[in-house]
């Protein structure tokens, strides 16, 4: 995977008010941490980071005060309504040290089960792996062309990739193919049904009847 350059500046602004000003000026607050060094508060240009994000890059070479550092994009926080990035976590990495991260899974090929009229369910969209920063794959391709009706594909069935260790549970299901079930018509009883009330107290008459039954 390509390692992209990203310029960042050190920031002293802290707190919601100052950060709001920063964001309105087209910048994103970020933090760089790890490797037993001090945390550094950063800010970077929003458009530069979104460009990096769209390329699918997971590693960047950060330039902070003319000093270059390799970092992994650890977490990206979003404002889900304004649909923009609001904060980024960068983790310092050594290029000779293995890193853990989640990588998307892509299903490749048209399965036999789908051709027969089944429905494909992509259960696991990404998985955790461990590898060297230089060997991070963009995505893990899983071939499902031989997956028949009623069959599932597990993590243990993915062919091993050189220098990559799969950390997700080996028995976890990645995708499955099942028959399409037709919807049942709703009966009139179901339409008129009322939910059961679990805090309902029994009436006096019912209570007495119950006590008689017990004795």
């Amino acid at each position: 995977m390509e390692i992209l350059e990203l310029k960042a500046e050190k920031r002293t602004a802290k707190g919601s008010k100052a950060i709001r000003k920063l964001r309105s000026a087209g910048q994103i607050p970020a933090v760089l941490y790890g490797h037993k060094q001090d945390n550094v508060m950063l800010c970077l240009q929003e458009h530069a980071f979104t460009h990096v994000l769209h390329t699918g890059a997971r590693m960047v070479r950060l330039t902070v005060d003319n000093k270059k550092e390799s970092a992994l994009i650890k977490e990206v926080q979003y404002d889900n309504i304004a649909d923009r990035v609001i904060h980024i976590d960068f983790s310092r990495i050594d290029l000779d040290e293995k890193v853990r991260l989640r990588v998307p899974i892509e299903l490749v090929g048209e399965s036999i089960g789908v051709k027969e009229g089944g429905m494909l369910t992509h259960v696991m969209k990404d998985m955790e792996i461990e590898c060297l920063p230089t060997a991070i794959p963009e995505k893990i391709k899983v071939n499902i062309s031989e997956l028949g009706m009623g069959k599932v594909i597990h993590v243990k069935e993915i062919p091993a990739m050189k220098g990559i260790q799969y950390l997700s549970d080996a028995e976890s299901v990645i995708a499955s193919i099942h028959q399409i079930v037709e919807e049942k018509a709703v009966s009139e009883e179901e339409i008129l049904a009322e939910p059961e009330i679990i805090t309902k107290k029994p009436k006096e008459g019912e209570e007495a009847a119950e006590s008689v039954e017990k004795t």
Partner: protein
Amino acid sequence: MRLMPKRVKFRKSQRQKIKGNATRCNTVAFGEFGLQSLEPGWITAQQLEAGRVSASHYLPREGKLTIRVFPHKPVTSKPIETRMGKGKGEPEFWVAVVKPGTILYELSGINEEIARQTFNRIAHKMPVKVRFVQRRKTV
């Protein structure tokens, strides 16, 4: 399909205000595409069902629709031509309380163009403004 809880603690509930934005259920989690609410509001079980039916009529067989909200809240009303007082009315229908940002429906197994057209049909059945969203990239 009738959307309604099976068991409840109380038959009736107070109306309450809908404050703030959604802090949960606000990202596409099960499919590739989603329909996100942009306004606060109540979506009735009937409206949710109407959305589901309009989607199922349009979707190809391989498309899978997930409804992300559930009508947990009972809404009561008094019979017509009744004088005020004499207690709260009887439960009439069930609603899902929706905040801005909530994902209402999700789609998987189809391409973007069909997903957009399907959500456009569902949007006509919704009492709130909605928009099309996509799953975010894994980081």
